[in-house]
């Protein structure tokens, strides 16, 4: 049997394959390791970490919608200290790149997190979450503000030599402008997209179903939007893109790569099938073999627009 080179590069970060598990949909890796060998993955992106632990939003945090779900977790996380003491050692046992996602409500907090984590060998890259829409005191504002995103990128860049991935919000007019600003300020890559702002009401109580009122929409419902954002970035900015949003099978992965993604993230799908990466890897391999594609990275941005 022929072999396919599934490895891809995100800037200087080399991944064995393009499959990353998305932040917030895999915790810190321990629960999902009951289902799959983490070493088969391209990488794992940990739940957004903030300087101090965050309790997160009151229940209800989850609402199912047509082919999607709203979440308003509120960035519940164990905080930097416990992350380093309790979570990193577990991840260190694996031979898989760990990307640490960071959420913060000030530029200083981002920088401090990066500085503290910079010495952790296990952590190969940072994904900077400027876009989480469900935290009242941060997320939305940063992610929708071009100059803020530029500043955060710049400051974080000067704090580390590790790979920096800026995770972009889709809740903007032109996402490519944001990708451009990230590139100009030294980011190695961008992730697109985080969730879209949505809500749902209980028509009996007239209350929002989520305690936070607004939540982030994820799942297959948003795939066409995520693909459009990836394509928009790819056509306008020369920066590696990590595609994320509604990926449910290997066909979706190929579609994202064709549209411009160098790697992809699996999010909501982890909740439904934590072993999905296994069958996706097989599907990617077979697709490439059938078409004589030697290296999957050739697919990135290989769209034909007439």
């Amino acid at each position, binding site marked *: 049997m022929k072999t396919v080179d599934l490895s891809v590069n995100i800037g200087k970060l080399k991944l064995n394959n393009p499959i990353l598990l998305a932040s917030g949909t895999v915790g810190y890796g321990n629960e999902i390791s009951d289902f799959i060998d983490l070493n088969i993955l391209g990488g794992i992106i940990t739940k957004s970490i903030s300087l101090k632990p965050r*309790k997160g939003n009151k*229940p*209800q*945090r989850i609402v199912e919608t047509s*082919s999607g779900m709203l979440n308003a*977790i509120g960035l519940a996380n164990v905080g930097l200290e416990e992350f380093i003491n309790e979570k990193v050692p577990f991840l260190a046992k694996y031979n898989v790149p760990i990307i640490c996602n960071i959420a913060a409500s000030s530029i200083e907090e981002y920088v401090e997190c990066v500085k503290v984590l910079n010495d952790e060998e296990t952590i190969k890259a940072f994904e900077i979450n400027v876009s989480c829409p469900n935290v009242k005191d941060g997320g939305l504002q940063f992610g929708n503000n071009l100059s803020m995103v530029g500043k955060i990128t710049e400051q974080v860049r000067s704090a580390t030599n590790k790979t920096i991935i800026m995770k972009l919000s889709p809740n903007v007019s032109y996402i490519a402008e944001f990708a451009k600003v990230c590139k100009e300020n030294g980011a190695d890559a961008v992730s697109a997209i985080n969730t879209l702002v949505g809500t749902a009401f209980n028509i009996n109580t007239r209350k929002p179903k989520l305690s936070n009122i607004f939540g982030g929409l994820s799942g297959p419902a948003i795939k066409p939007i995520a693909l459009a954002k990836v394509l928009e970035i790819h056509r306008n900015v020369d920066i590696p893109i990590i595609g994320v949003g509604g990926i449910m099978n290997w066909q979706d992965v190929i579609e994202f790569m064709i549209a411009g993604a160098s790697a992809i993230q699996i999010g909501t799908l982890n909740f439904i099938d*934590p072993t999905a990466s296994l069958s996706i890897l097989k599907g990617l391999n077979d697709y490439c073999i059938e078409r004589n594609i030697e290296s999957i990275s050739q697919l990135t941005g290989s769209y034909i627009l007439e």
Partner: protein
Amino acid sequence: MLIINSPVVELSEIQKGIFLQKIKSPEIANGILPGQFLNIKVSEGFTPLLRRPFSICDVEDDNIFLMFNIYGEGTRILACKHIGDMINILGPLGKGYNFEDEFDIAVIIAGGLGAAPFPYLARKLKDRKEIISFIGGRSKSEVIRYNIPNSLVATEDGSDGFKGNVVQLFENEIRNYFNKSIKVFGCGPNGMLKALSDSVKKLSSEDYNIKCEISTESAMACGFGICQGCPIQDANNPEHYHLICKDGPVFNINDVVL
């Protein structure tokens, strides 16, 4: 924890609108405890998108039982399964009831579909402990007695048994057991659990020897701790939520804020 496809071997409507599904799944049957649950993918594709959590209702040899009513899309699909259809199961999940500690009398309190976990619990307890059960519902048709031993019934409209809520009934009856050590196993709507919490506190303050574990519910995405979607307030630490799917669904009633 595993993900497995297992066939439906029997489907029955044990009373109007209440379905019992027997699934042959030795892997699950051998590893699951009362109060734990399963996260079920009700259809092949991704509609509905998320799995649906169900308590383990009973275990018999290699078979497991689910009990449910038709609530929305997911349970409607589940109720339409034919014999031989495969069900995709993720589990066993969560922490079940602790029924091996010290107590004289096991008290089961079930509200409506809160009856679901108790056939299995009763099966595990039956040769070892005295069991008294209290089953509540809004009216007669909502009372689910299925395989719950030694039961007294309460209905809000008085159409069956005691008129009033099941916790009142429990409180009245339990007065006969002052000098016994009692362990209450509760499951039901949040209102019932709140009343139970108050009742247990009151009885404790009156020096009853009483412990209580309850099974709680929440919207869930993953069911195994990776989404943080199912918080319940820790009673002892205002800065902390437990996760219902992983730290629960069964909690000591004093450990959570209902």
